[in-house]
């Protein structure tokens, strides 16, 4: 019974959150476009499913994943735990936090795989590219980027370096890659930075950042706890372009290899022909 009232409550609040979007869509539809919506019933059912899906998704996350994830982030960043894992006396060094980096990597990767917004963009990318960009290829490339980004962000909190240096170096890498990556991937790669961080990733990553900033000596939770999401939205751009560059490179090498084989076949055929003559 309690669960049902909670579902009702969350459904209403999700509905309230998306109300502006629905008002904008139908406002423009009826006042500006002034044409009936094709398959209106189907579209309305689709919107209902989306809202209902997000509601269930959020309830599940809040019941199961968030409390556990936040608790784990707290436990892993606890000085007592870190001290026990390192068996070292005295001051903790940045490398003593290795379980935090591994956790940051693993949680970044796994939450990104489950991110609904990324699934949506991957579906579209596959459709538009005619299947050249696979749904899983893109999702895994993005997930690797988020994983690397969050671990690096955790390292930054531990050593206490200013965030802008990391971000500026990241920007420079993105700009350089832009000139060498296959043209078609560039806009999608830029987009993948923004889509990675939403419903699932943000709360967990924020918990990790704040947990770290609270326990590392000399850090302030309010100031140093932020910035992980920035890393998580920068690195996917790099990893998606890298993914395209690698597949492009391999395709070219394969093409060259085939070309060589073809030449060899041609030569042997020619020589066989010569012998016959």
């Amino acid at each position, binding site marked *: 019974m309690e669960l049902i009232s909670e579902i009702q409550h969350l459904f209403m609040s999700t509905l309230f959150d998306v109300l502006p979007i629905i008002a904008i869509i139908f406002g423009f539809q009826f006042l500006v476009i002034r044409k009936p919506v094709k398959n209106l019933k189907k579209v309305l059912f689709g919107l209902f499913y*989306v809202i209902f*899906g997000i509601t*269930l*998704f959020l309830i599940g996350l809040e019941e199961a994943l968030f409390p556990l994830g936040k608790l784990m982030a707290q436990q892993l960043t606890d000085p007592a735990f870190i001290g026990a894992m390192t068996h070292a006396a005295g001051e903790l060094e940045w490398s003593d936090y290795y379980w935090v980096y591994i*956790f940051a990597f*693993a949680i970044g990767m796994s939450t990104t795989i489950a991110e609904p917004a990324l699934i949506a963009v991957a579906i579209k990318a596959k459709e538009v590219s005619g299947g050249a960009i696979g749904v899983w290829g893109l999702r895994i490339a993005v997930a690797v980027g988020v994983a690397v980004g969050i671990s690096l962000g955790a390292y930054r909190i531990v050593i206490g370096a200013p965030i802008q240096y990391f971000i500026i170096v990241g920007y420079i890498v993105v*700009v350089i890659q832009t000139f060498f990556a296959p043209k078609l991937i560039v*806009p999608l790669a830029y987009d993948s*930075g*923004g889509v990675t961080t939403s419903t699932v990733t943000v709360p967990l990553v924020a918990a990790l950042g704040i947990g770290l900033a609270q326990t590392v000596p000399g850090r302030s939770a309010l100031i140093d706890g932020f910035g992980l999401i920035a890393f998580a939205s920068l690195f996917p751009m790099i990893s998606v372009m890298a993914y395209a560059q690698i597949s492009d490179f391999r395709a070219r090498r394969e093409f060259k290899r085939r070309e060589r084989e073809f030449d060899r076949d041609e030569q042997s055929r020619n020589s066989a022909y010569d012998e016959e003559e």
Partner: protein
Amino acid sequence: MFGSLRDLMPIILVIAFFQMFVLQQPIEHVGTLITGFFFVLLGLTFFIYGLNMGLFPIGEAMAHAFARKGSIFWLMAFAFALGFGTTIAEPALIAVSNEAAEIASQAGHIAAGEDAMKLYATGLRFTVALSVGIAIMLGVLRILLNWPIHLMIMIGYTLVIIVTAFAPAEIIGIAYDSGGVTTSTITVPLVAALGIGLASSISGRNPMLDGFGLIAFASLLPIVFVLVYGIIV
């Protein structure tokens, strides 16, 4: 349903591994945990089903209708409304702007007290929503006028770097994060469908090259705007 289970498997494995081998602590409330995961599973399935049925078709249909209508004014108005409207109510943004107000108050940038903090947080929310509205508008304009995306992004990066140099140190982390939190689960599919729909209905545009990129602007421009907000306020 099966696909959603596969999507969630990595999270389950990561949590199980860390609980069992690293933290070595028993998991409490296993029952609620399993129910929770079941809800996540069901929710993801419904979401993806509804995406293909409602959100993608309506986004693309509207893009086609605007392209046929040919009124740039209304298209811009729609783009701005979509960006502004979806961001202003975003729960993640509300949380972030409240935290930013707390930081600003502790650092002494604004007067202490509830009212000043509330004013600061609301101002920040409007700033971010405004920046997302302008970003989507710029992105749509780029599709129409065929501006090169990489140049625009580089100009954006340059702006971020310049403004960072003048911004108070406390706001920088939150400003960089604000780019990531603005794009929500409903906005992303809708904006993607809008861009691809526009690019495929205007002749001479390639949906792959021109359809994507709107979300990139929506996550870059808020950084600049929040930094500027931090300088001014």
